[in-house]
């Protein structure tokens, strides 16, 4: 056998275009699936974090509720708690929905994640929406509970 060029009968341009095309398709596929995977993971991470934070806040509300229930006249109850300022790099909001079936809604934007955590409370809790981070649960003068953003006294 004599040596022959292996790219016999092919135009150089075609060879180049084919190679480039296959590589681009392969790489794009990899990037898309990789990106989607990362996004999925991020969303589920945010969901997990919000759920944990929500449950912690709900536990604190339950604690404040128990304390408020044990008071008589001239009472004041304040509970302070440090929560993370961000989840997976983004800020979040905590909303108190004070229906008969009171619950918390924790939300982030981009990606839009929404987590609901039920509250167990005897004392009425005021409807509100605050940013995540350090928060305080107070008993108001009317005897209701309120969720306030920020720490410090007062």
């Amino acid at each position, binding site marked *: 056998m004599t040596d022959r060029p292996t790219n016999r009968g092919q135009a150089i341009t075609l060879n180049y275009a084919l190679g*480039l095309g296959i590589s681009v398709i392969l790489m794009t596929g990899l*990037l898309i699936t*990789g990106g989607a995977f*990362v996004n999925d993971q991020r969303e589920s991470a945010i969901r997990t974090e919000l759920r944990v*934070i929500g449950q912690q806040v709900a536990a604190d509300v339950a*604690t404040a509720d128990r304390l408020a229930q044990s008071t*008589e006249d001239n009472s004041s109850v304040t509970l*302070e*708690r440090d929560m993370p300022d961000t989840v997976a790099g983004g800020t979040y909001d905590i909303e108190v929905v004070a229906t008969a079936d009171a619950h918390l809604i924790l939300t982030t934007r981009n990606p839009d994640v929404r987590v609901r955590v039920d509250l167990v409370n005897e004392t009425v809790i005021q409807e509100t929406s605050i940013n995540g981070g350090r928060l305080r649960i107070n008993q108001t003068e009317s005897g209701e509970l309120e969720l306030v953003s920020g720490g410090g006294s007062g």
Partner: protein
Amino acid sequence: MAHLSNENRRSRGQLILVTAFALAVSFVALALVLNSVIYTENLATRSESAKASDAVKVKSDMVDGTAQIMTYVNEYNASEADTYSDLVDEIRVGVSNTTQFAREYQNVNGQAINTTLVATEKGTWINQTFSVENKNFTDANGDPSWTLVNDTEGTRRFRMNVTDPDALADTGDLAAGETRSDLDNFTVVARDRSVSPAKTWKMELFHDDADLIGSGSEYVLSVVVDGDQRPTCTVPNGVEHFWVNVSAGTVSGEDCRALRFAENTGGVYDISYWNGDKINGTYRLMVNNQSALDPTHYNSTVTAGPPVLDKAIWGGKILVDYEEQRMVYETDARVVPGESDD
């Protein structure tokens, strides 16, 4: 541009490198995100930041402590106190000492507490427990049937010591009648007049000497609630003396199930003795409404003999303040040692 031809072998695969780099960056970002999840999940394993149980425990401890102080002051200082404010001052000193001790313990845990006495309720002892061996249960004027207190809202520590059981009426007459003339025996009556007909609770004490009701000639305590005869409780014949703890429901130290003081009355009732000349002994009880006592039934000084009225503290209110780093808990707490026994 990536060169894939044979002529440029050395720079082949640039596209793959760029892609791999982009993927690597996104995976590093993912690792960072997951790291923050680990931190947040770590929160879930922590116990609650502030322990509600500590605050409630401190409150209930302070209430218990104050109740003990009140009981002590009522028990040992009432007869010497000239005014209610003497008693209140003693309780206030006690509360302040207790707070001081508690504070020293709690400071170690980073908890600050404070307790102050903010209010007290007046009560009165009706007392026939001194300088008598064998006095009957008549009032200061010798009237055997008399009303100790009108419209009391509570009674506590009602005890009588029958020092001479043989002075009890010898009868087997278990009269369940509603009126005083029906009864020959010594009877304690609690009557709630706020409803019509009035609800009455009656406790008779007598000696079934002739064994007419089959008690075996014992001393008998019989309770009649709104005309409904309860099973009797008895004390063996021949004892030198016996206690009837009306509040605790015991007779001579034995539990008497029929004896539940003023069980059918509402919150407000009168307490009367009928045929107080048919019993000898001592008694003492605390009532919480001193304005409803008729002073003519009592002697004003101890030297004139029993029964007398002594000042007492029925209950009160303390303000408990509890603080720790992340929690403030402040509340009034009502203190009533033993509350009412009815």
